[in-house]
């Protein structure tokens, strides 16, 4: 047996996370841009820059340089120049903030809640930048002159990779009792036991009588699917010409 320890998780293959992020970004880009162009994702050497404006949470966040917000806003409206008017710039930054907030919300869903700490699209304070240990990727669209950084913890990376592989949606589990409820099952009563020899048993024939040790007035243990139930009894009584089994004690389930 090899002494090498098995890794807890297989490491992603080269480009796996980048491809998963590109798949994740495509619908966001299609929502906000008329002609977004190809999504390009690559590792970001600067790691999680603290001077960016982040949206999301520690485990999955999207960040952008404040100076790039106006360029993103300009790309969103299809403009050609930022202009120097502070009012115009504020409008562009507000629009870009909304797109970035939407990206954060989508990250929250795609990463299984890792980005749920700051709902509503609030931009994180730079002091709340994601952990340096996160994987940071730089994404841009077509020939746009802005880029967004995505800071992803291990859980978010796994969630995005699974989503890209088509395994992101997990079935909702039903309660086992609910699933079993429609199943038919035979119930019966244990009428008692009789001791005899194997020879006597083998010699039994049609018409022979075998008496059992329980009395007609006894409450008989219930049998469910051929096995004695832990609780529950019934009595066999006559009702005119009919023979009726009347429950004396219901079955208690833990």
């Amino acid at each position: 047996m090899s002494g090498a320890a098995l890794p807890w998780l297989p490491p992603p293959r080269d480009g796996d996370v980048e491809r998963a992020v590109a798949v994740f970004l495509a619908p966001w880009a299609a929502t906000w841009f008329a002609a977004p162009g190809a999504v390009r994702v690559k590792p970001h050497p600067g790691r999680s820059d603290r001077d960016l404006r982040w949206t999301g949470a520690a485990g999955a966040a999207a960040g952008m340089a404040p100076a790039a917000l106006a360029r993103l806003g300009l790309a969103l409206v299809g403009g050609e120049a930022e202009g120097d008017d502070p009012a115009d710039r504020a409008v562009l930054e507000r629009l870009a903030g909304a797109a970035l907030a939407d990206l954060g919300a989508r990250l929250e869903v795609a990463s299984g809640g890792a980005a749920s700490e700051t709902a509503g699209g609030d931009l994180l304070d730079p002091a709340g930048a994601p952990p340096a240990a996160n994987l940071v990727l730089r994404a841009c669209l077509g020939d746009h002159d802005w880029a967004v950084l995505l800071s992803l913890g291990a859980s978010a990376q796994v969630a995005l990779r699974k989503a890209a592989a088509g395994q992101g949606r997990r079935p909702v589990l039903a309660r086992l009792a609910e699933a079993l409820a429609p199943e038919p099952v035979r119930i019966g009563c244990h009428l008692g036991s009789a001791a005899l020899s194997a020879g006597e048993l083998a010699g039994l024939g049609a018409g022979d009588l075998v008496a059992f040790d329980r009395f007609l007035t006894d409450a008989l243990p219930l049998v469910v699917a051929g096995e004695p139930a832990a609780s529950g009894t019934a009595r066999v009584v006559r009702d005119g010409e009919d023979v009726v089994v009347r429950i004396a004690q219901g079955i208690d389930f833990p």
Partner: protein
Amino acid sequence: MIRTADGVSRSIIDNLPVTIEAILGVAEVRVGDLNRLAEGDTFTLDRLLGDAVELRLNGAVVAYGELVSVGDNFAVRIQSVAHS
């Protein structure tokens, strides 16, 4: 002494004490209805269809018959027995 095909003495087997159990089949219900069974609920046995009582040896049904009484005890009138 009679010997069976596999060489076991027949008399040894014949003298073997066994205990058979009688199970009266009552009804088929849904699993979800089991915990709704309450005191006073009734099931009428259809004697015309011959609600058979199963006689079991170590869990295996070895005979079945009709529910009757002998004195104050439950009893079964045998209708069919498994072949030896």
